């Protein structure tokens, strides 16, 4: 006999599991040109739907959960199920509405375009 007194089965168990996953920082490359900042992060084994990118108040949180299906007994194991998570400070010159991301072959490519006001501009000198 079950001693569980809950009337409704609890559905938040998935959430609990994700909280217990070890968190590691993904390796990133960051590049910049006049138009944008380009961030590339390695997240091998993560599915596109499991990636969350939040930008709020000048802070960006990058998170991706990797789940592995395992078959049989492990002979050795050098990587496991993890959450890739890392925080970045986003400069004010970035237009956060225009940020776009693509994910391919386990690497995330994030384009952070600079706002018009922040792009370098050449001033023409008028003849006086």
């Amino acid at each position, binding site marked *: 006999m079950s001693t569980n007194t809950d009337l409704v089965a609890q559905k938040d168990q998935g959430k609990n599991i994700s909280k217990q996953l070890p968190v590691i920082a993904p390796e990133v*490359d960051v590049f910049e040109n006049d138009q944008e900042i380009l961030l590339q992060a*390695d997240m091998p*084994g993560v599915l596109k739907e499991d990636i969350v990118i939040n930008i709020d108040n000048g802070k960006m949180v990058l998170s991706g959960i990797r789940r592995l299906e395992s078959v049989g007994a*492990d002979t050795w194991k050098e990587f496991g199920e993890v959450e890739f998570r890392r925080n970045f400070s986003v400069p004010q010159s970035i237009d956060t509405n225009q940020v776009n991301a693509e994910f391919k072959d386990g690497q995330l490519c994030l384009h952070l375009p600079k706002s018009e006001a922040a792009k370098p501009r050449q001033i023409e000198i008028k003849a006086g």
Partner: protein
Amino acid sequence: MFTHLHDMHQFLGAMDLFRNRMNTIFNDFDRTASPAYNWVGTEVHPPTNLSDSGDNLEIVAEVPGVKKEDLEVKIQGNYLQITGTRKNAPPEGYKTHRTERTRGSFSRSFTLPYDVDASKAEATLTHGLLRLVLPKAETAKPKQITIQ
């Protein structure tokens, strides 16, 4: 008020990072101490998992950003070699701020616990993971013995 909160967040973020690093240090310690694992640390590249499902050996390797045509897998008896090149040169016309990701060529070889049938081996590459399913050779497969 906001700036204070932000500072606090940054500080806690750094602490988290530090704690995670410490956690992985101990993982590596456990691994080297256990006789079931090879003497491996975080230096080996690419990291792999090997599992045994009775009929098959399955090996999974982390190879983010590596193209199918840049990977090579060789099998001979119980010897397995994975070689590849990662072509992620910095994009043209960009200034580099940070390069933490690995680049260039890598190679890793293994002595598998059993002989495998190379002609039936299957390899797939999805989301930056290379998965090899290697059927054990007939002689290496488990046999059921009937008790007289």
